[in-house]
């Protein structure tokens, strides 16, 4: 019997691992939908900001802006992975993010001159209320919790 769903948007698309009752929960439902929303926001913010920085003043701090663009790409991939319940890929994206924010955060503290502008990961995400630091941790915790039956 078909389920009555008026508008199954892309986020409701049944992806793999949705499972039946008792199976793992899809990563895009419940608390996961909050993560998808915030990840989407950061995907937009980081990518757009890096785009502007690279287009207008790339020579000022090429490394910082390239890392900023990389952060944007990782956020986009993480958003898609969480929205489609692609668990392993989502774990990979969140892990890269956590390593990235820690590495770039440390680098920006050690070599301040290389990071003149706030980028999404510099200062451990200080310019964004440290959300970039908290987000991958929440993502990994959610991926672990939702995989339990």
């Amino acid at each position, binding site marked *: 019997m078909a389920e009555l769903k008026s508008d199954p948007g892309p986020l409701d698309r049944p992806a793999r691992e949705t499972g039946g009752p008792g199976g793992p929960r899809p990563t895009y439902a419940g608390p996961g939908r909050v993560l998808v*929303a915030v990840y989407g926001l950061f995907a937009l913010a980081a990518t757009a900001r890096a785009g502007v920085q690279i287009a207008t003043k790339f020579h000022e701090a090429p490394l910082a802006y390239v890392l900023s663009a990389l952060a944007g790409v990782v956020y986009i991939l993480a958003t898609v992975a969480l929205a489609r319940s692609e668990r392993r890929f989502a774990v990979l994206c969140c892990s890269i993010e956590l390593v990235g924010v820690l590495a770039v955060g440390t680098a920006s503290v050690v070599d301040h001159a290389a990071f003149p502008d706030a980028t999404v990961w510099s200062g451990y995400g200080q310019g964004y209320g440290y959300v970039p630091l908290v987000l991958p941790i929440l993502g990994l915790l959610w991926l672990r919790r939702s995989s339990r039956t």
Partner: protein
Amino acid sequence: MTPHGVGTAVIITSLLAAAWCLVTTLRKRPIGIGELVAMGVAQALVITQIVISVVHLVQGQRPHELATFIGYLVAIFVILPVAGVLAKMEPTRWGSLIATVGGLVVAVLIVRLNQIWTGVG
């Protein structure tokens, strides 16, 4: 930006909408018509702010960083509608949390919008 009054009104209404949605979140309820109306009022003021900003741009005034400013205008326009749709897709307390975050983000973006216009920060 010249009409600070509108920006302040957006900040206050979006924070009030966020506070309302936060209460709903803590009560573990999905958002209802009241929260949506509050978000709608905030969105109406957001649109007013955008129109004023565009009028300023058309009149030849320029913010410190034009591209970033326009990016923020686009972002600020879509945040509350997207948050509202996502909140309705997730009719649980988590949907209410999305709406809460949407209201907070709009308030932050208005502050940043003013900073970009004046070149401070």
